[in-house]
């Protein structure tokens, strides 16, 4: 196991396109860190730089304290699980899993193998034992003689993990490994991966665009956008105290509601809402500010005095165990409220266009500077 340290790591493609910019990150030994963000945010490029599949054009990358910028991927002691599994179709599961160990043995020297028959046989036995052990851990022993084409998606994914596992690498890299699986299998495999990490205690770097996957798997999340790290923290902290408006909007389903307002006399004036009294350091400021409220924090006010804003009901969506209510406030700003299924009937009883009073707890409100990446200020 090893640490992975990014020191101002950047990637600029020929032609000047900057895919990753100044990433600073320390992945601790045995930690499960998830890189998450929308398509094109630079998360996969970052992972591929760790694997040695992309050249690092700026900064320093260390694995286990050793600078690896110029070290080929095969010599970095990392193993990667690819999105489309990347199993060798002409080899059986057993041969697929043994492949990296066989190559490592070849690097040990052909001559040494030929001159020492007993050592070669021992090595063969060791490789076979490693493959059996990994197959047992992943529950794929019965599949060892099959070809990848005869496996289901979930089985292929297990084999891909197995191929990484047999190497006992310092760092495991996962590039959206569950995105080709159906929803049910994805949840199962997620739990298996989590259990595997707990069992191995290995350093793992995992890339996904699925924030639910990220929240459930990671010890820490690294939220990326535009090639830069937006926030690096525990899933709980990312959810409860997003560092900027992008993170707040990306993490959580449905997305956080944002209402653009203006500071006047220490109060935040949002169209269609009661002025929101902001204490402390906001008292003196003016200009624009963005109010953020998570959908599950938004509820119907019991009386006029409790109402913090008014909105028109646009649509009520029944999701079984809960319901989403889509609302519109003055200035064409849209809101979503997520309520328990027990409230469904009362919401459905309202006609579209009905104005309802809404409220939320002051502690659950987030404040951001204006702009898509406006930083958190309260």
């Amino acid at each position, binding site marked *: 196991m090893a640490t992975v340290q990014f020191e101002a790591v950047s990637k600029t493609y020929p032609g000047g396109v900057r895919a990753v910019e100044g990433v600073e990150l320390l992945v601790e030994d045995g930690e499960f860190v998830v890189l998450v963000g929308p398509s094109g945010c630079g998360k996969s490029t970052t992972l591929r730089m760790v694997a040695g*599949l992309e050249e690092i054009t700026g900064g320093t990358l260390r694995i286990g304290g050793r600078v690896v910028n110029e070290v080929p*991927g*095969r010599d970095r002691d990392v*193993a*990667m699980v*690819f999105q*489309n599994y990347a199993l*060798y179709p002409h080899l059986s599961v057993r041969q697929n899993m043994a492949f*990296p160990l066989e190559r490592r043995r070849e690097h040990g020297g052909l001559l040494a193998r030929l001159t020492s028959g007993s050592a070669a046989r021992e090595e063969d036995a060791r490789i076979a034992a490693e493959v059996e052990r990994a197959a047992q851990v992943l529950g794929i022993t019965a599949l060892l003689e099959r070809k990848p084409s005869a496996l289901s998606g979930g089985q292929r994914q297990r084999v891909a993990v197995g191929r990484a596992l047999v190497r006992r690498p310092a760092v495991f890299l996962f590039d959206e490994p569950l995105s080709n699986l159906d929803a049910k299998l994805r949840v199962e495999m997620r739990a298996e991966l989590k259990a595997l990490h707990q069992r191995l205690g290995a350093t793992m770097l995992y890339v996904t665009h699925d924030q639910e996957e990220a929240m459930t798997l990671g010890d820490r999340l690294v939220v990326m956008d535009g090639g830069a790290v937006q926030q690096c923290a525990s899933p709980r902290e990312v959810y409860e105290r997003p560092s900027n408006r992008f993170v707040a909007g990306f993490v959580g389903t449905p997305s956080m509601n944002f209402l653009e307002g203006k500071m006047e006399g220490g109060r935040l004036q949002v169209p269609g809402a009661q002025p929101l009294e902001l204490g402390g350091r906001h008292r003196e400021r003016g200009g624009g500010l963005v109010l953020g409220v998570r959908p599950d924090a938004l509820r119907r006010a019991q009386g006029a005095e409790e109402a913090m804003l008014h909105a028109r009901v646009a649509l009520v969506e029944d999701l079984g165990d809960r319901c989403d209510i889509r609302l519109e406030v003055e200035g064409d700003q849209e809101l979503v409220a997520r309520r328990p299924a027990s409230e469904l009937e009362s919401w459905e009883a309202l006609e579209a266009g009905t104005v309802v009073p809404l409220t939320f707890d002051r502690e659950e409100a987030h404040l951001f500077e204006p702009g898509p990446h406006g930083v958190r200020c309260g």
Partner: protein
Amino acid sequence: MRTRGSQLVVLALLALGAVLMLFPLWWMLVVSLETPANAGAATVEVGALSLFPAEPQWRNWVDAMRAVGTVEWEGFLDALANSILVTFLTVTATVLSCSLVGYALARTRFRGRATLFGIMLATMMLPPQVTMIPMFLVFRELGWVDTILPLVVPALFGNAFFVFMFRQFMAQVPEALVEAARLDGCGHLGVWWRVMLPLCRPVVAITAVFTFIFVWNDFLGPLIYLHSEDKATLAIALNSFRNQYGGLEDVQYLMALSLVTMIPCILLFLVAQRQFIEGLGKGAVKG
């Protein structure tokens, strides 16, 4: 949806085509098994040809093989061994060199790659007759005349058509497979040998079969470069045999030896038929 009538028409046309293609083979087979008198008559007049000889003369085949060259059996066995050696080496060299160049053009990035690929494709427009004399002069300077080297060594430098096929096929292999192999410890040669070549089996088959047929039947190359009788290939031996037994009274021997020469090609096609057709299909779709 095709109607039954149109299917019958298609079948009839295909059957007619098959008969036309198979007629010369059948004619050769029948003549090779006839007595000298009947064989001569069948050569002059097709009507004299029976569907199958009443008394097949199987000895014609043995006698024909024995009669090749100046020493009994030796001429034929030498020619057979030479053909096998030249064909084996050329097929192996062609498959290895073309797939390696195809890999380089499909999977490695280097300055001038597209230009080199274009130049290589342009060589397909060059008729082999144009390079024949310069190549002969080069090989003569190297002292390679009357050796198999001029027939084998050029195969180590690839063939534009097969390189193109390999390149197109390899370009379709998912990049993740190559990356996985690199992380698993393969260099470029390892990726080519352990991942790409096994995946390119249909293209390997088509390259091997085409090259085999071309080299096995090649007459001009061995005629130019191989002069000694003990170095002759089957094609040269067959030509010498024709000069010796080309008359009407000996035509059954000539047909028998021609069929013996063809057997490996027919067997190879039958064995590799599935791969061969798959390879042609893939070449057509992906090329």
